[in-house]
């Protein structure tokens, strides 16, 4: 790690001011990804502003009139996954969080930090390799290299990396909003769908946060599929591995008819991939495996796999079917 100044504050405005003052400063939350990347010399801040003493940890109902729940950005993943309100009303989120990493990491990682995880592309991690995300303009080693784990949707010539979070896949299916404090102290709200971005010509930008902005909370609107949701993560081993493909599914049912389906995928794109086409096809249909297959097929037909990840197309389809079947059976 490069030498850095360590600063600790319990005031979010102080934290923001410190960060704005130093273009090479970074926020530090759980540290599970940032410290890792600093050890690799991928992230090189010369100042860390430790946010873990900020009071942004609460999980609470949103004010009346806005049905839903607010999750403090600096609360730990474990607390979010186990909070009684989340388990009861957003079991999909609990399951997704619990599919990620290990118990130790979930005890450290914050909810806001989870949103800011950087890709696990091994070329991004290896400073001897070209990588447009780490070193813009240096090229993408994965595009024609070891890209088994990489994107099948929304990639660009510049970057084929995937975003590794499980939590955010559920947040996408749940249409979460990310509330941030701006440098002027005012709040703004960003839809989860607009929070992460596709790589396009600027893969160095993972998300649409502006310099100095600090995530204060994640807001979940009320949903009608708490009793019909599922998260399935397909991976190379049975635990503690990043997803090859994951699917978060929530289904609102009227009898056996689908009122609406909410499907998001992980491990397939630079952001959580909302399967809108499949959702549209399922609306109003009967909840049958045949219909799930048709919808999943239509979604995955849009995929553009790379040389080594063609399997993700079939795997994605099967996993959507599997998640919808499980969701329909009841949570």
């Amino acid at each position, binding site marked *: 790690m490069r030498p850095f100044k360590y600063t600790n504050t319990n005031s979010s405005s102080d934290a923001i001011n410190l960060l704005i003052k130093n273009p090479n400063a970074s926020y530090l939350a759980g540290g599970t990804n940032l410290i890792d990347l600093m050890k690799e010399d991928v992230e090189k801040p010369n100042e860390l502003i430790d946010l873990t003493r900020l009071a942004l940890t609460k999980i609470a109902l949103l004010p009346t009139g806005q049905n839903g729940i607010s999750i403090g950005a600096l609360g730990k993943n474990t607390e979010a996954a186990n909070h009684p309100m989340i388990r009861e009303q957003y079991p999909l989120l609990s399951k997704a969080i619990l599919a990620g990493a290990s118990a130790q990491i979930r005890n450290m990682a914050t909810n806001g930090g989870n949103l800011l995880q950087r890709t696990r592309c091994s070329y991004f991690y290896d400073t001897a390799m070209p990588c447009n995300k780490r070193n813009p303009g240096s090229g993408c080693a994965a595009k024609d290299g070891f890209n088994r784990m990489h994107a099948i949707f929304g990639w660009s010539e510049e970057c084929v990396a995937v975003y590794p979070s499980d939590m955010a896949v559920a947040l996408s299916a749940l249409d979460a909003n990310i509330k941030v404090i701006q440098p002027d102290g005012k709040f703004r709200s960003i839809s989860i769908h607009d929070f992460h971005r596709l790589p396009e010509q600027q893969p160095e930008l993972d998300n649409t946060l502006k310099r100095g902005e600090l995530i204060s909370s994640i807001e979940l609107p009320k949903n009608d599929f708490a009793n019909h949701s599922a998260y399935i993560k*397909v*991976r190379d081993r*049975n635990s503690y591995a990043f997803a090859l493909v994951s699917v978060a599914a929530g289904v609102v049912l009227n009898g056996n008819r689908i009122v609406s389906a909410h499907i998001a995928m992980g491990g397939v794109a630079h952001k959580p991939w909302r399967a809108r086409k499949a959702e549209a096809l399922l609306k109003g249909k009967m909840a049958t495996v045949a219909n799930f297959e048709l919808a999943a097929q239509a979604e995955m037909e849009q995929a553009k796999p790379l040389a080594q990840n063609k399997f*993700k197309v079939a795997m994605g389809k*099967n996993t959507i079917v*599997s998640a919808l079947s499980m969701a329909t059976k009841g949570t």
Partner: protein
Amino acid sequence: MEEKNKAIGKGVSRIEGILKITGKATYATDYPAKNMAYAVLFKSTIASGTITSLDTSAAEKSQGVLAVITHKNAPKLNLKGGLRGGALLQSPEILFHGQHIGIVVAQSFEQATHAAHLIHVEYQKKEGKTDFDKLLPNAEMPKGKELADLVRGDAKAAFENAAVRVEEIYETPIEHHHPMEPHSTVAVWEGEQLTLYNGSQIINGAQTAAASTLNLKPEQVRIISPFIGGGFGSKGGQWANLVLTAVAAKMVNRPVKLALTRQQMFNSVGLRQRNHQKISLGASKDGILQSLSHQTTSHTAVDSEYLEPCGDCSKIMYEVPNSLISYRVVPMNVILPTYTRGPGKSTGSFALESAMDELAYKLNIDPIELRLKNEPKKDPSNGKPWSSRKVVECLKEGAKAFGWDKRKAEPGTNKIGDDLVGYGVACGTYPARQRDSSAVIKLTKKGNNVNATVEIAASDLGTGTNTILAQTAADGLGLAMENITVKLGDSNLPPAAGSVGSVGAASFANAVNDACTKITDELLAKSGKQFFVRPTAKDLMISENVSAFETRADAKAPTQADQYSAHSFNANFAEVRVNALTGMVKVTRFLAVTGAGRILNPKTARSQIIGGNIWGIGMALSEESIIDPRWGNFATRSFADYHVPTNFDIGKLDAMFINEEDKIPNKMGVKGIGEVGIVGVAAAVANAVFNATGKRIRHLPITPDKLL
């Protein structure tokens, strides 16, 4: 006689266990030293070429840096001193990606790590040999004499004339040992005496290699290695990092600690090479083997040769009149491969035992039945009688215990929900050998309390050496285990073989047992008395009122041992569940049945076996290191990419031992279990996956994508 063998054969808990559960077991980097400096290695980022410029100035100026050592200022070392893998900073030449090119030594670990990022290197690149698939057609004959073609009869003609044939290619990828303790060393010089705290599977081997490489006499180097955080072959031979720590300590005139990073473990301490194996089996309609060819192509380093002997199992497993075992090799700009758990046998058995399963399916014979039909009466490779061979018992007892009769012969027909269930079987073997080892027993008596110390430069990397030696000495001396102290893991102790190739238990326990016999004989002689019933050493210490007595035994394998073919054998049974939609596999049950002679301690022996099984499950399902041929680097570079099994990957495992008395390979009748535990495992899992899904995966690992 009941008094004897009180300890041996009992499932005693590890005697050093208390230190391990309290965090007090001292591995190499746990040794404190005053004024310690910290060293970090930095590595080449090309696979082949020459360093043309090395700018270390920024690193040298970085705060806390004590020295930057490269080929420009490193002392001259003996390149033929017995270390593996080169990379000793003796020249600017680069032979593989990730070759050590220098060391930063600093006041703190943080400072050294940071400074290592400040080194700037320029290279003259050469085209590297980095693409195994492209190099495959140009494979060469290996240099090693033991790797020459082994021909019996006419395998080709017999194959072509056989009624039923299987001919397939089986691929196993590069794997890494990844012991949990990365290779690490603390080097302390006192004048011209060097102490190296360093996990070493072969204590004396580490000592002589370090001494020779540093141009020192062996007695100037002491290896201290009471605890080893796993090795699995990678800490058998020693690598450059051992000696470079000593070099750094000499240059900064302080004790130095150097631990490889996990990432550096991929290209510093060997690997299990990729193997391309072609098996051709020909059989009669009733399943009698007529022909067996096992042709392996592997890679090795460009400057040194190592091949794991994939054809070994095929040499001896089955009665077959026509056979060809061959090896070809492609040199690559990749670190030298080395012994990796069950070298050759684990990977070779995957090919052979998968092919046997394919043959059984073609013949419509139960795979156990096929093996029983081809059981050899003597070693088919050399005509020697078996010292013992319990394959039939392993298969029969295992089938009973596992519930083999519940297996559905037709693949893909056993379904529970979305899961396909399958059963697989495969056999394995590993040679039983005893190597020269010496042990000293020291007896002391206070009142009527007799204690013994056993001294031997053996190693215990989790194999249970400490415990079995205490058991052996207790029985050999007539003492209780709590009166035995075992000293091992120090090159100042009497020289011994290593914990490699399953020779540890046989070599160490026989040395201790011989020393026990000898000390008893000497005490008897000293007493000048005749006894009707032979007294124990303990009895004699008391009856003859001896306060202290010691002796040393230098043990060797029995002279008749090489007139027999001596091996451990096993049969492995796997039950898998494969999710039909996602392709994820879980080994839900596994049973290994092993005939390995006398089991000194069933508790630690069972752990060894299930540990080997878990290695085999990792080999079957998830472990793979991938080279990017464009640069020759490992694209898999961390535990996030290289998937060793987690706790949840493992279902219910059982170990069964076949009672077997075999004193031919050694007096104690110990055949070894460390290696055989992995042999046959990957094939049993792959065969179970076939039984579950009807998909025959011949290219490990069986990741979910291959089953869609």
